[in-house]
């Protein structure tokens, strides 16, 4: 009985403390997109973000189904997590794995699929 109570206390503590992390991960993928991606890829995902004009390489157009259909979900995950340089693309696309959690990046892949209204081939 005592063992059971101790386990309940430990479980409660773990759940409670996880809520005290530096960032509340209740943010939706759309909010993350607006915060981390829209400055280059545009608020609507059309690649016309405010930072685009000075970029040597045009940002990916996320609402373009013809282009996005060519990408595998796993590739989108890798580029989002590890940045463009990890797949020999532009380093202007930074790595987000230290900023967004694995779950958030997975949600981001789903959100990009919503933007293009497409799935991988």
């Amino acid at each position, binding site marked *: 009985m005592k063992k059971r109570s101790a386990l309940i206390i430990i479980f409660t503590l773990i759940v409670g403390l996880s809520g005290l992390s530096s960032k509340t991960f209740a943010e939706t993928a759309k909010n993350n997109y607006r915060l981390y991606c829209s400055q280059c890829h545009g608020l609507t995902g059309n690649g016309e*973000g405010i930072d685009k004009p000075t970029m040597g390489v045009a940002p990916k157009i996320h609402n373009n189904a013809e282009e996005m259909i060519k990408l595998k979900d796993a590739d989108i995950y890798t580029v989002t997590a590890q*940045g463009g340089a990890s797949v020999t693309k532009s*380093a202007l696309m930074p790595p987000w794995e230290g900023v967004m959690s694995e779950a958030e990046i997975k949600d981001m892949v789903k959100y990009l699929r919503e933007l293009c209204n497409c799935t991988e081939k």
Partner: protein
Amino acid sequence: MKMTKLTCLILFSLALTLPVRIAAAGDGKTIIEKNNCGTCHKMEGPAAKTFAEALSRKAPDLFYAGSKFQEEFLVEFSQKPYQIRPAGTLYLNHVKTVDGVDRIQDPPLCASRLSKEDAVLASKYLMTLKDPDMKIGVYKPGASFFKIGAKMIFTKSVACIGCHQVKKRGKIVGGTSGSSLYNAGSRLNGDWLSSYIRNPHYWDPMSPMPKWDLGEHAWMQLTNYIMEMKE
């Protein structure tokens, strides 16, 4: 006996200046409160931790101003502010899609117009707002570094220029979502910059800045390179 007199004299002089210093910082706090700086700036931590909190932020947090800024900059800026972030504190609040292209919509300018005297006192107070955990002495002003390598990091491998404006042959170039850096060396504390570029989310959990995994040498090069940008 002579030493005792000298010690007394030193202590007396210190005693005279100490209340003045405390009064200066105290007066500065009053000036900041009277001018409602806290309406836009967070004067106490913690920093925003949710998307909604980040959106509601009107101006940069000042509760660690003493770690982040140089005092001379604060004195000048609080008298005559200018736009450091071309798209405002958070670009999301000042960007609209017009004809399919995102455009910056006149972000508001800091309303501070302090007199020189008030600016000096307010800045003195702001410089007391420090993060006790920030490492001091990491940035070595004037230390030699490989400028071409640092420039490569800034423009290519980390591509800071994608979001931050700098000056290139007198012309402003670079992205507009981040803070401009062409006068970073006369605005920021090098130790703070060094800490921020390594881990922006320590200072601001909702910073839109990515986190890179660079070696110590590269971080120092980047810090030195940015701190050399002065006006």
